[in-house]
Structures are given as C-alpha cells and as structure tokens.
C-alpha cells in the first residue's frame, strides 16, 4: 500500500480522516520528521531508512483529532479580482452574486502545498467551481484571493499561478516569520 519516495520517504493513499489528525498521528511514528497531506496521497519523511508498518497506516483511518480545537478565522477581503469578469461569463453569474456566494460559505483548510502557507480551502459553492486557467499567469500578487476546481485559496507570496483571481485579502500577511496565517483544519470565513 505504501510506495517508496526515494530512501527517506514513503507515500500512501490519503485515509478518510482530517488532515490535521493525519499529520499529528504520522509525526508520532518513529523516525518521522515531516508529513505532507495532499488531496489523494500522504507522504511521511524520515531521518533514516523508512520503517513501514502497514498497521500504522491502516490505523490512520481512525486517528484521533488533535486536542487543540479547530480555529475559526475571519478574513477581510475585497472582491475586485482581474478574473471576476471571466468567472462571471463562465458561471453566468453577476460579479456581485459571485462575491455573495463566495462570502456566504464556511471553508475548511483541507491541504497545504504549492507555496509556503498556501492553503487549499474546501467548501466552494458548486456554481463557482471552474477548471484552472489554460495558461497560468506569470505573476499573481501576494494576497490574491482565488478559486479553482473545488477550492478557494489566497496566494501568500507573489508567484506564478493558474487560479482565477476574484479578489484580495486586506490587512494581513498570509505568511511571516511566525509561519502561515492559516493552518490545516482551520474554518475560514470571508467578510467583504
């Protein structure tokens, strides 16, 4: 079930457990120094030749939630993104409806990847779900609020990006010397 990802890491299918439960359980395995939870797969990184115990992996399906409660985070945003018009055309919704729909949901940080602090948040209304842009932009400004597929996210840093920009977050940095603003499991609401 687990595959070798070189000689210091393994990869296995993501169990049907919350990402933060997976992270805290896997980090307790002997020799594990890091964990990455992606959409369908998980990787465990070791400081030695990985010891793969299939029972450990199987037990993740009923791993306990960490004791720290899930955090509720509210982010102030302005819906003025360069792709609003495109999203409006593709969804047959008006720009105001897009903002209203997007701000009416509560999102959950399902996984983190791509760039430090980049949080994939699930909970996006089906009417707003669009495939990524055919051609990624070379530069997306830091703080851009974006949607793609079933997720919404905020770009923590200026970077290339293929998501549809519908707005920007105001008043906060998504990543600084204390680490990421959003963490796995956070419940996030957007206020415009």
């Amino acid at each position, binding site marked *: 079930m687990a*595959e*070798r*990802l*070189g*000689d*210091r*890491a393994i*990869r296995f299918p993501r169990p049907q457990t919350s*990402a933060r439960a997976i*992270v805290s359980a896997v*980090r307790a395995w002997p020799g594990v*120094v*890091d*964990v*990455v*939870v*992606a*959409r*369908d*797969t*998980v*990787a465990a*990184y070791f400081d030695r030749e990985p010891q793969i115990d299939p029972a450990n992996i199987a037990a993740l399906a009923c791993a306990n939630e960490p004791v720290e409660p899930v955090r509720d985070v509210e982010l102030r945003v302005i819906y003025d993104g360069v792709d609003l018009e495109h999203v409006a055309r593709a969804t047959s919704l008006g720009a105001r409806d897009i903002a209203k729909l997007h701000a009416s949901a509560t999102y959950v940080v399902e*996984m*983190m*990847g*791509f*760039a*430090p*602090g*980049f949080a994939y948040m699930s909970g996006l209304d089906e009417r707003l779900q669009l495939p990524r842009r055919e051609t990624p932009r070379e530069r997306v400004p830091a703080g851009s609020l974006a949607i793609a597929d079933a997720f919404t996210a905020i770009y923590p*840093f200026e970077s290339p990006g293929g998501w549809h920009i519908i707005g920007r977050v105001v008043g906060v940095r998504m*990543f600084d*010397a204390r*680490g*990421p603003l959003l*963490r*796995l499991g956070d419940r996030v609401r957007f206020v415009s």
Partner: protein
Amino acid sequence: MSLHVVRAVGLCTVQDLGRRGHMHEAVPPGGALVPELLAIANRTANNPDPAPAIEVLGQLVVRAATDVLVAVDGVPRLLRAGEELTVSSGGRRCAYLAVRGGIATPRVLDGHGTLLCAELGAPLRAPESLAIGAAPETHATPPAFTDGTEIHVIAGPDHDAFAAGGLALLTSAPYRILPSSDRVGTRLAGAVIPRAPAYRDASRPMVRGAIEVPRDGQPIVLGPEHPTTGGYPIIAVIASADLGRFFSIALGKAMRFIASR
C-alpha cells in the same frame, strides 16, 4: 565581530542544515544545497556542523573587520582585519564560506537559513555587514567528500505515468545540467522521457531529489526550496547518499543516472 560583503555575484545566502517539521504548512526544508560541503567548511572553521555559513552560487568578496578564522570548503585561513577574501563556485556548483562562530542570524521557524520561497532572509548584497555568532568551538575531523557524476536513483513512485522503458531511458545516456537551474529545481537536458498517454497530472507530495518530468519530457530534480506538493509525475528519486554529490556538479556539466536495486 563582523564580516563585510564587498561584492556578491550570483546567489549568495546564509544557509544551515535546513528546517524540519514545517512541510505540512507547505514550507520546504531548505538549507544548504550540499549539506556535506557545509559540514566540511564548518568543521574546518572549528564550528558545529549546523552552524550558519554562506553558500556561494557565483562569487563573493568579503572583508574581515577583525582577525577571524574562516574556511572555504575544506581550506582554513586566518583572515586579518581589513583583509579581503574572494570565494567562487566554479569547479563545483557551490562553495561554502564558514566563519569561526558562525554567521549570526535570527532563528525563524526552527532554522537560520535563507528560504527565498518563504521570504525568510534575503540574498547577500554589497555593501552589507554580517554579524559573527558565538557557536561553540569544536574539533572534529571534516568528513570526506567524493565528487562524481554517476548518481544512483530509486525508481518510482509514479510508474504508471510513463511509457514502458522510461527508467531505462533516464539511465541510458548522460544529461546536462542547465544553467537555468536554481535552489528550487535543477533542470536537465537529455533523452526525452515520454508520458503514458492516459496519465493525468495530480498534485502529490514532493521530496528533495525527486526527478519530476513535465510534459516536455525533460527532467527536473527538486532542490531544497521545492514546493511541498507538485503536479508532475516522479520517475525516480535520487538516493540520499548521492544527493549532495548531484547538487555539487557544476552547471553545464554532464552527469548520468544509475538505477539502484
């Protein structure tokens, strides 16, 4: 106690052995491109292995403010106050300048090194003054480091992403290391690795040393600042024992992959 940066060409950054325990926040470990060479420089300067030192991808000229023991890779040198020293990568992709006591940089997210993708620290720029730290004095023999261009890889895990014989192609002929390589990815030019027609890209966890293959079939080897997840399939991963050797091969040179059992 400080060291003045007189000139910095290319990419010169403070590095240590990297950050652990933050990959689930999408923060890659970072750290020295070749940790073995960092350790050699540090031991030569009587520092502990993880002391922050300067990684030079290009050329760096520094001037000592006071007498100080430094090491460029495995070569020690007593730098007198006011004396200048030029450090160049050339024979290898990178060189390390260690200073007795280490470079004093704040510990941020469990590390002292510059991590460009997270905007932690910044490339060195002249004129700039670097404070020297107070790392304890150690006396350990520097480890041996053997240069080489034959790099062992462990196959997979994305076997289904490639047409049959993909790994044989990867290991059949030399690849050249392209100058466009950076600390995120080392770009290679050589035999094109064709994709299996049915394979669809999916975002998956990545690892340093992973050999990922974009649609154009030219492999990219992930370095210390790699994204923690990525969409390109991985044909093989460099064996941990050969990672430092791979990342020390000078840009423009040819190297060859060898399949491990």
